[in-house]
């Protein structure tokens, strides 16, 4: 939906983290993207690649850890996991009232640096 602004924020976080640890080069950026985060991995990677030239992350490759959606239903109490990107109702009882416990992640997990 808004991958360019997310990629800008990611690049800034990557550079800040690398500089904090006195690194001069970032080789790999490992991120977690939840399927319900609304972020399309390919679009985020594309935007990151477009923004990275001229920075210490210019040769960095993005590796995406895909996080499936899971939740707890407010109505029937079941813990559920689904394959879809969006959950509109609890797959067990059909209630639309539930809390996502995973799948909304948009996190920088790990860096490989020099």
């Amino acid at each position: 939906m808004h991958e360019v602004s997310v990629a800008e924020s990611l690049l800034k976080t990557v550079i800040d983290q690398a500089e904090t640890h006195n690194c001069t080069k970032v080789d790999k950026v490992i991120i977690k993207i939840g399927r319900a985060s609304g972020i399309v991995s390919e679009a985020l990677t594309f935007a990151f690649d477009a923004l990275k030239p001229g920075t210490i992350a210019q040769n960095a490759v993005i590796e995406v850890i895909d996080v499936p959606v899971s939740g707890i239903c407010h109505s029937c109490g079941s813990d559920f996991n689904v394959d879809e990107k969006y959950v509109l109702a609890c797959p067990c009882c059909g209630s639309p009232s539930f809390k996502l416990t995973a799948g909304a992640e948009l996190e920088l997990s790990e860096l490989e640096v020099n």
Partner: protein
Amino acid sequence: MKLKVASKILDANERIANENTGILKSKGIFSINLMSSPGAGKTTLLEKTIIALSSKIKIAVIEGDVAGSDDAERIDKLHIPVIQINTGGGCHLDASMVQEAVNDLPLEGVKLLFIENVGNLVCPAAFNLGEDIKVMLLSMTEGHDKPLKYPNMFQTSSALVINKIDLAPYVNADIEKIKKDALSLNPSMKIFEVSCQTGEGVEKWTDWLLTLCS
């Protein structure tokens, strides 16, 4: 070398949003992030609200749009502090844009700040601006299927204003279904039914706003 990081990618936005909260709190201003699809009536709701509350509290408005200053010009006619943000193609406001606007607005005496987000039912829900609450506006002409199609917007909002209720008979939209689905997504959501055209229901909404600012 591997570096374990585990930080949210939008942490930078969160940090600035927290600063915004601090700035507004220190000035005693209650802030509302007003979100809807394009054309639902955000600016018209603001016009009606500002007129209704003009003798009671001082309001300021930050207008967010992809382009143009039409909305800010409309609000400016009501002689309150207003500033226009153009995102230049961006689909939502972020905390840094709002911080710049907050710093530029004359906010002396202001009790209530509306941040009118870019018309969009997806992205604004993901970006914290530092506001006290989010309010979602939905018009009857958009149809009753919207809560279940755009659940994030309804789950993150404290209140739902349903606008254009005077048009309900002409558009085959079921207001009871909108309310039922919105409440199932967010059981604590306050719901207001208004017509900014006829003025129906606006007073209940503005009375509620006054309780938030007192």
